[in-house]
């Protein structure tokens, strides 16, 4: 039977040290504060050794992928070192980006801010690369008790209702959605399983939820109460003495089908 997935989220920022630009691993809090954590490749190898089911790699520098060779080089290196599924995003806005990322060894491409510009892009990507390759990465926040799409470029919520938007993404051929609650990001006060459950029930495609994992119990809530297919976490794995293998045994004890 298909297992539920635990996914460490690795956020990448490029930084200039001397004359050299290097890629570093960071975590964020509410999409504002950034904390440097370390080297992305060595961290990814630790996650692999800890039986993470998949990795999400996102460049959060805000650069278009055309101007981000460092990120592509990093992915290339990474995919030679580890043998597990990698979902990659950051500055993806055209079909060539899919080709570049797939060549660099990633398996799924996530689209975030371009979703707000043109849903036709999702359609084309799905047609060319298959739905299984296209992940809609959707940031949301709650305004007046309504979940709405968050536009991180503006640093502000939009008026687009999350549920409507997710339905549209499914109709356009997205194969999976990654929902992240911006207000919970990095705070560790629990996942927004309520929103996740509403969307998971209405859509046919798999849902990844993230933003707010603070204890191993939060994973269980994401699966049991949120109906999520996968739970992703950044800060939880990066900054605490917690590994995917510990979280996994907690999830398994709760009776949820999970690998190993």
């Amino acid at each position: 039977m298909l297992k539920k997935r635990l996914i460490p989220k690795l956020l990448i920022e490029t930084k200039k040290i001397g004359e050299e630009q290097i890629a570093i691993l960071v975590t964020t809090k509410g999409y504002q504060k950034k904390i440097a954590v370390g080297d992305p490749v060595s961290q990814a190898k630790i996650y692999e050794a800890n039986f993470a089911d998949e990795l999400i790699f996102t460049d959060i520098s805000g650069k278009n992928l055309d101007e981000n060779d460092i990120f592509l080089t990093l992915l290339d290196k990474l995919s030679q070192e580890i043998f597990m599924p990698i979902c990659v995003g950051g500055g993806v806005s055209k079909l060539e980006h899919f080709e570049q990322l797939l060549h660099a060894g990633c398996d799924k491409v996530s689209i975030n801010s371009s979703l707000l510009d043109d849903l036709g892009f999702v359609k084309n990507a799905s047609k060319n690369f298959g739905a299984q390759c296209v992940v809609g990465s959707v940031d949301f926040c709650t305004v007046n008790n309504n979940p709405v799409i968050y536009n991180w470029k503006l640093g502000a919520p939009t008026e687009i209702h999350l549920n409507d938007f997710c339905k549209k993404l499914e109709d356009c051929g997205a194969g999976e959605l990654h929902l992240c609650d911006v207000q919970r990001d990095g705070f560790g006060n629990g996942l927004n399983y309520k929103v996740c459950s509403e969307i998971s029930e209405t859509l046919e495609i798999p849902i990844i939820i993230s933003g707010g994992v603070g204890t191993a119990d939060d994973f269980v809530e994401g699966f049991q109460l949120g109906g999520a297919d996968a739970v992703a976490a950044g800060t939880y794995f990066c900054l605490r003495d917690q590994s995917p293998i510990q979280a996994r045994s907690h999830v398994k004890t709760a009776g949820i089908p999970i690998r190993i």
Partner: protein
Amino acid sequence: MHLDAQPFFINTPDDFKHATHIALPGVGSFSYCVNNLRESGLLSYLEKNIFTYQKPVLGICVGMQMLFESSEEGGLSHGLGWLAGKIKKLEKNEMMKIPHVGWNSVNFSKPSVQFNTDKEYDFYFDHSFALEKSDIILTSTTHSQTFVSSVSNDNILACQFHPEKSQTNGLNFLKMFLN
């Protein structure tokens, strides 16, 4: 590298000379992959290497699917037709989501040095279409329906899952191919 094999890309007919084993990865939609291969001008050389020289070939994901007669993806598209069988969309049901994404159990029906038939092994899947039946089943997997997750005959091995992404089980599967 991890398996003492040196992978390289085949870009020209001459490159085939140096290859002892051939992998056909497939990322993309069915017709996108088949058309790319046809337009590359390498298909006849590939077929010669596989059917005349009997070099072992490994098809992965869409690389497996395109070896069969046809696929329902993007309307009905023709495959290479090397193997008998049709690729169909996985059935939908209320409990199971499509695409089928994640780690699922694989049951081997032929034993090997690496895998037993009385044990289940988890491999990583990411697809919406699959092979329904075949005469040369190596493994089967159940999601919304039971489908053929890999096939093998003399020198053709093809799998719907991604061995290159399936950690230890995946490396063992690649070992099975290389030996």
